[in-house]
């Protein structure tokens, strides 16, 4: 398989008036083409910081990141951050607009995605008229619109109730499979990680280091099928024991 991202001995320290905060310490792992990686770790351990660095939104203190040439990265932030003054369609087109690639084909592609994921009647509506789940889907489509090779998802389902969460993660898994994307997804939810990922990276509490990387070898094509697998509980126990708890 093709390596598209290589992270070597990555460290990050924040400098603030209050003092230094070491958020990431010596993190090393590789990402291969069409992998679905889930990262779990306790709250405040440095997960979002890691994605920010991958997306070039933040610099790092030490280490090295090697990206495949012309790797296009799409970042779905922890909060949906839809712009309230833009319609749903315009929100979904924001990335294309900024990158100045709002071609007819790309707009059609976005419209098709919106349609496919149940937002057909809402193109001219505004974000406040949508439910939490719908907003989340718009944010995902906005990220997919620029046709990224690597998707960074920061707790994409955290704003949803349990049932919508299962439904949307079913959707997302399908979109990602169909569009052949590589994904790094952050989650707090161990069962979500097992149901979606091909590998799960467990981070320690702050400063984040890699505690373990698990290859998830489980039968089932969809998250729902995976949850029903007999190995599910096995992985759950493994990850649960590994995870640092904030109590």
């Amino acid at each position: 398989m093709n390596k598209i991202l290589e992270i070597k001995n990555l460290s990050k320290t924040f400098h603030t008036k209050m003092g230094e905060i070491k958020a990431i310490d010596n993190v090393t792992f590789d990402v291969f083409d069409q992998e679905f990686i889930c990262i779990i770790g306790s709250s405040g351990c440095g997960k979002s910081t890691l994605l920010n660095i991958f997306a070039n939104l933040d610099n790092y203190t030490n280490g090295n990141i090697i990206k495949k040439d012309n790797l296009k990265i799409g970042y779905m932030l922890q909060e949906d951050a839809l712009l309230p003054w833009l319609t749903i369609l315009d929100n979904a087109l924001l990335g294309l607009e900024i990158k100045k690639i709002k071609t007819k084909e790309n707009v059609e592609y976005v419209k098709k995605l919106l349609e496919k994921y149940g937002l057909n009647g809402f193109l001219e509506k505004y974000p406040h008229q949508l439910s939490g789940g719908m907003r989340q889907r718009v944010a995902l489509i906005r990220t997919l619109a620029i046709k990224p090779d690597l998707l960074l998802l920061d707790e994409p389902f955290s704003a949803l109730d349990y049932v919508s969460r299962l439904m949307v993660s079913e959707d997302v898994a399908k979109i990602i499979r169909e569009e052949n994307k590589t994904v790094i997804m952050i989650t707090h939810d161990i069962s979500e990680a097992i149901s979606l990922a091909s590998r799960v990276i467990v981070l320690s509490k702050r400063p984040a280091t890699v505690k373990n990387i698990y290859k998830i070898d489980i039968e089932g094509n969809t998250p729902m099928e995976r949850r029903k697998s007999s190995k599910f509980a096995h992985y759950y126990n493994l990850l649960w024991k590994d995870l640092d708890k904030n109590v």
Partner: protein
Amino acid sequence: MSDEQRKYLRSLRLRKYFVIFCQISIVLGFFIIWEYLANKNIINTFVFSKPSKIMETIINLAIQNNLFVHIVTTLKEVLISFILGILLGFIIAIILYEFPIISDIVDPFLTMLNSLPKVALGPLIIIIAGANTKSIIVMALLINLIVSIITIYNGFVNIDEKKIKLVKSFGANKIQILTKLIIPSSYKTIISSLKLNISMSLIGVIMGEFLVSKAGLGYLIIYGTQVFNLSLVMSGILLLVIISYILYKIITFIEGKLIKNF
């Protein structure tokens, strides 16, 4: 529509009519009582004038044809300082936002200027800008500009960091961040600064006209005082009240049109 809904809407309408009725009654009552007290010599008409005399004065002014000139003069000055204030305020706010270091440096000076009673600078302005319309505009600008800068700048600063992160994640450059995010998201603040700015401009212009002018409503008032024609003073004040109310309504109307969308 259900009966309850219809009843509800009807009660809303009735309430609105009642409010308007009361407002008109208050205005009419005020003038009638004023006129009555003046006619019965209970109040001194030399100081307080009376509505019928004020009307007469206004009609006289209108017939002698210079009332219009005074109103237009004041309006023109207000408009010029309003537009200048908004434009300059907007541009300076952008500069302060884009260069936080400048913002830090000028912060105490802005605060000082903001808290200084600008009228104290009047004589100085006249010496520098000359005894003409320019001084009036400068006076009004001094009063509306600082407030505009501070309001618009605060709108910029208060924008959600996450949204900046979002547009940056798509590789937005500084100008794109400004045009696609900062300015549209401060839209409401900018519009509400218009409202503030129009009243400030009016205050500044009248203050300026008090100090130096050959025409305008402020001039009418100050001239009336000098020749002890209190009816003229009252007419000036009345016209000013009406004009400032109309200007305010126009801005509110524009505001409503502009921020209807979301």
